[in-house]
């Protein structure tokens, strides 16, 4: 039995293209309806990456831009599993992350926030999930930072995540937030997600069992990608 299409994406579970409080979305959101296209080979396939594509040390953001010492800030491990909507692990898939440093500053030519760069922190990493869909990073907890939306808008501390899955239809970019951060409730980007339970899926939980005593705290963050039908019947795809 070969699987076929990916489950229809539940767009009510995602932020709408236009969310007025997130001002940049106003001119960057399509006004016309999306065209719904049943999956073809173009959507059920996607790029395949291997361990040769990355370096094993790329998942250590404490070490991958070190020049004369460790970066400043709270040392944390972020770990979890990439699953699909059928609760099956997604093995051997590429996970990429990027983030600000402990003071809320990105190493990016367009970031002009007055907080300092850290000479020992780059702020990007990547890894492949293992055969059980498990991944982990070591990094510094990012700081919150101000941004131009309302006059006094601050992003909660967050880490950007990019995940591939096995199909172009599963491609996803999202952000991890930290349990207990009071800025989550006031952020127009977070609150563009209409469903409060969906927001909770983006909140990483403090995981004392995974922390390293006298060294590093840990947060747990599982990611769910679209799942896939398994059926022999009706409307089968060419080639299946």
């Amino acid at each position, binding site marked *: 039995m070969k699987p076929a299409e990916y489950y229809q994406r*539940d*767009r009510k*579970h*995602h*932020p709408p293209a236009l969310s007025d409080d*997130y001002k940049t*979305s106003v*001119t*960057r*959101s*399509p*006004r016309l309806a*999306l*065209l719904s*296209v049943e999956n*073809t080979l*173009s*959507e059920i396939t*996607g*790029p*395949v990456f291997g361990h040769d594509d*990355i*370096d094993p040390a*790329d998942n250590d953001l404490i070490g*991958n*831009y070190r020049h004369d010492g460790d970066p400043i800030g709270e040392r944390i491990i972020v770990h979890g599993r990439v699953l*699909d*909507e059928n*609760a099956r692990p997604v093995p051997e898939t590429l996970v*990429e*992350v*990027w983030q600000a440093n402990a003071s809320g500053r*990105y*190493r*990016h*030519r*367009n970031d002009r926030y007055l907080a300092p760069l850290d000479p020992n922190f*780059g702020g*990007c990493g*990547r890894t492949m999930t293992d055969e059980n869909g498990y991944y982990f990073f070591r990094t510094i907890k990012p700081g919150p930072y101000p941004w131009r939306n309302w006059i006094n808008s601050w992003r909660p501390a967050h880490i*950007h995540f*990019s995940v591939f899955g096995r199909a*172009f239809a599963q*491609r*996803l*970019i*999202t*952000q991890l937030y930290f349990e207990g951060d009071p800025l989550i409730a006031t952020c127009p*980007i*977070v609150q563009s*997600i209409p469903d409060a*339970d969906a927001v909770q*899926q*983006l909140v990483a939980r403090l995981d004392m069992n995974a922390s390293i005593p006298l060294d590093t705290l840990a947060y747990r963050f599982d*990611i*769910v990608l*679209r799942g896939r039908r398994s059926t022999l019947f009706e409307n*089968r795809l*060419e*080639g299946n």
Partner: protein
Amino acid sequence: MRDKLGYLKETPSQTAGPYVHIGLAPGAAGFEIFDRELGWEIAGPQARGERIRVEGRVSDGTGAPVKDVLIELWQANAEGVYAHPESGGEVEPGFRGWGRVISDFETGEWAFETVKPGAVPGRNGAIQAPHINLWIVARGINLGLNTRLYFADEQAANATDPVLNLIEQEHRRATLVATRQKKGLYRFDIRLQGEDETVFLDI
């Protein structure tokens, strides 16, 4: 988060933000960290078929260029085979068919070089015209936008393409067709909103 049938819910999307380049194209953000950045080489030197370059710009609802956009593309090789185990065929060594491009921070112009894809199988025995699948993310885009790039010099194939034919307003089909500037050079402008808004896909 499980529903009553035990299914998990997909993790909700969030915008890639203004600093997406740090994670996905750090060299472009202005610093070197990885020996190998992913997505620069799309087809590889051994790929067969016509070498092409595609240039374009993404503009917002006011007509201004989007200068911090990142586009991923996914395509078959010249024989219409994707570099994926379910595609049922072999591709040339080094052919991945996937790429990443970012716009110029000053002009918003972007470009990529690859080989022109072949026609690929569609549903129920149909043939899909040669096309490149695109996924567009940027600050202000809450969930990546999917669309397709077709080729103006594939008129006959485009006329029977099942996806183009799903577009009810026929004049809007042109928003998915790259114009041919000269041999091997195409232009594909994407309009997020407003007049001539590009057709985006819910796949």
